[in-house]
């Protein structure tokens, strides 16, 4: 077991594990160090040479990503000498870069741009005509587009397919400044986690076909949320924006680091599940297909409850937040209804893999199990009040609270989706996680809790 020791960085003492990587310490303590190729999930590769630091006693600057912390080590992470080295290497990094930031989707979240502002700010010494040119629009497959000219050859993407997915689709071909990322002919990028290479790419070489050219990233606001694709509960950012004259819209999901759950990544199914959020939304309150006032709808439901006393089933969807499920249990008790939370629809053994995907395809699956709710199909056929469970059941009267269209019910209430609402979810390992509200629509649908308040009146 390695001991904790003290080292000095820029005159300050830090505690670190002996033989751990210096760059990890710098990152942890937010000591500014530029780097492209290092990534905590992929380890050191040492090819970009940007993370140069000065180590007292060593003749030459060393890369922090390949330096092990030793007792008594003294490091200078800044200063004229180091800044010059970084500036010179960055200049080489940019020498064949097309500098097409105005049309590049990465602009605003690009390491190359950031480092240029920190260490560059030089005028280009090479004519545009003299730059090495490569392919600018390569469709790698799996929604990933490659611009070989923008690439800094950090090899994060190729190492991802080698070390994480073990699918080996990406490689670097060619030597010297002719080197470029590529796939083999007839073997496109195709694995369930492929789009993570877009996040890994520090520059605009790999962009998402799904997201590119839809929004400038500096307009996006991010909410810390939980993916609802399955019960793994991957942490995500919901990136959304309300462009002028338009409604607040989700543009993409991005993985949010949580070492206890998903590490740095999410699956492509989860990443693209934001699309279904916006499509076919239930926005109107409907009685037998006709729009009615919400007050009238509430009165109608109350009357139905009176009418079917003792013959009511409340169906709870396993994607609802724990707060909502708890409130619904109280509501069901008030109206003396039976409660069931069917799970059958959410079991999908084909979805499961040994990375992140779980066979339990509902976000709060574990809560339903923890609360010992019945998961049987409803047996009372008087009144069914279905809170967003996607399967349809037959009864004398069906009332449905839905985020999306498609329910067969005589009375339908629209509810807020998870991106428009916040709450707690319990993942398959029993970890409780809070998902924050991201989107505020121009005319928002009430949440379940809000509807229940109204039904009390």
């Amino acid at each position, binding site marked *: 077991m390695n001991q904790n020791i003290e080292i000095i960085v820029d005159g300050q003492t830090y505690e670190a594990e002996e033989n751990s990587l210096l760059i990890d310490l710098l990152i942890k303590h937010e000591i500014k160090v530029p780097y492209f190729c290092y990534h905590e999930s992929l380890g050191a590769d040492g090819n970009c040479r940007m993370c140069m630091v000065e180590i007292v006693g060593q003749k030459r600057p060393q890369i922090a990503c390949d330096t092990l912390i030793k007792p008594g080590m003294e490091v200078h992470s800044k200063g004229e000498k180091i800044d010059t080295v970084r500036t010179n*290497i960055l200049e*080489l990094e940019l020498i064949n870069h097309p500098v097409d930031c105005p049309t590049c989707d990465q602009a605003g979240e690009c390491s190359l741009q950031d480092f240029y502002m920190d260490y560059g700010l030089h005028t280009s010494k090479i004519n545009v005509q003299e730059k090495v040119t490569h392919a600018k629009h390569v469709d790698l497959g799996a929604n990933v587009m490659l611009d070989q000219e923008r690439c800094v050859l950090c090899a994060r993407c190729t190492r991802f397919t080698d070390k994480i997915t073990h699918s080996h689709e990406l490689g670097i071909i060619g030597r*010297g400044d002719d080197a470029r990322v590529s796939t083999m002919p007839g073997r496109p990028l195709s694995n369930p986690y492929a789009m993570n290479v877009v996040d890994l790419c520090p520059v605009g070489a790999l962009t998402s076909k799904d997201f590119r050219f839809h929004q400038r990233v500096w307009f996006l606001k991010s909410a810390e949320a939980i993916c609802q694709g399955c019960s793994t509960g991957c942490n995500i950012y919901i990136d959304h924006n309300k462009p002028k004259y338009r409604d607040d819209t989700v543009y993409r999901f991005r993985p949010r680091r949580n070492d206890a759950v998903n590490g740095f990544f999410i699956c492509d199914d989860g990443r693209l599940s934001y699309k279904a959020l916006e499509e076919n939304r239930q926005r109107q309150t409907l009685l037998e297909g006709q729009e009615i006032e919400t007050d009238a709808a509430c009165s109608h439901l109350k009357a139905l409850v009176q009418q079917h006393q003792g013959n009511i089933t409340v169906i709870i969807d396993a994607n609802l937040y724990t707060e909502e499920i708890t409130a619904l249990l109280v509501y069901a008790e008030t109206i003396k209804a039976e409660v069931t939370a069917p799970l059958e629809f959410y079991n999908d053994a084909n979805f499961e893999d040994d990375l992140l995907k779980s066979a339990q395809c509902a976000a709060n699956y574990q809560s339903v199990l923890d609360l010992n709710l019945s998961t049987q199909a409803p047996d009372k056929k008087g009144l069914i009040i279905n809170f967003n469970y996607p399967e349809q059941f037959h009864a004398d009267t069906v009332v449905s609270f839905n985020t999306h269209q498609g329910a067969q019910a005589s009375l339908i209430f629209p509810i807020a989706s998870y991106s428009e609402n916040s709450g707690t979810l319990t993942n398959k390992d029993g970890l409780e996680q809070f998902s924050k509200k991201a989107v505020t629509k121009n005319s928002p649908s009430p949440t379940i809790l809000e509807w229940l308040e109204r039904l009390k009146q």
Partner: protein
Amino acid sequence: MMRTCQIVSQKFAIEDAHTLSIAQEHGAYDTLAKCQEFTPLEMIQIIKESGLRGKGGGGAPAGAKWALMPQDSEQSSVLVVNCDESEPGTFKDRQIITKDPHLLIEGILLTCYAIKAQDAYVYIRGEYFQFQKVLQRAIDEAEEAGFLKNINITLHRGAGAYICGEKSALLESLEGKRGHPRLKPKQPEPEWYFGQPTLVNNVETIASVPFIIQNGAEAYRAFGTEKSPGTLLFAMSGHVQNPGVYEAEFGVSMMDYINHYGGGIKNGKALKAVIPGGASTGVITAKEAEEVTLDYEALRSMGSALGTGGMIVMDESTCMVSVLKNLLEFYHEESCGQCTPCREGTGWANTLLGKILNKRGSSADINQLLEIADTMNGKTICVFAPAVSSVIVSFLTGFRDEFEVMV
């Protein structure tokens, strides 16, 4: 006076010495019996005492490298012979594998005995197709004659990348991956081939082993200097009367060597410059060449390096800007592209020099070349970029006026 030494080249002049029968007539494989007198550790000790230095260019002590090999490892050890001779100006290893391949095989067997290896790979330059056939035939002959009962020798052809001569890139290539140099280990340790401890040595280093085992460390030390003992297959190309490979001991004067074996400069012209040990060593001027001796220390003190001992001799008619351009084109083509300074620096330097050569450059471009060289020096995984850097700097130090008149 030049002393004749034939440690590696003893059978070069004998006709058909590449065949087993002729080679055996002249003593091939005699040391196999002799080495049984020693334990593996004693063998390593002999090599250490002989002061044998790696002959692939670096000149690191071979014995120390051998001593890193574990003697009681669960994983069996591997010997890899580096025959990826791609350094411009260097053509000594091919003499060994075509003229006396059994010497190499004998050396491999002795080395494998010392490091307890059962598998040996010879990584041979892809372009050496004809020479590879000779070596393969010799391996087959040795196999038939029963010399390879305990050891498998596999010949592996490279695919033409210069960088695969760097030992860790060579191992990556041998493992079937892209030839990219590996990050250096933090403490002295052997190389690794598929997780097996591995020794990588140059052809000539291994071919020197039989002599040392046969005659002892002192006999080897009788040649050369204190710090650079033994001999090297020095080679000459360029503007000399008799270009070729001639074995000589370390420490002889460069001019003596060029005059004695090379017959002096071609057509009676004056010497202008020498690239002393393969393209990656800094060029030295005629004046420096007059003073220098052929050993690691003397050339290092001149800011150059002995490298592989493959001298490129240039007479007074040579345009040094064109020579550098030629070299930079090579480096631009051959940089593996892993580290940023090398990947982008070689290309940019080549472009800049192209401008200068076409009389479209400025003195700022010359300074820029030096700046690029500075960024390339000591900031990469392997020594490719520092070598290019030293080449650029040496040309601009020794012959700056030739560059100045072009801008």
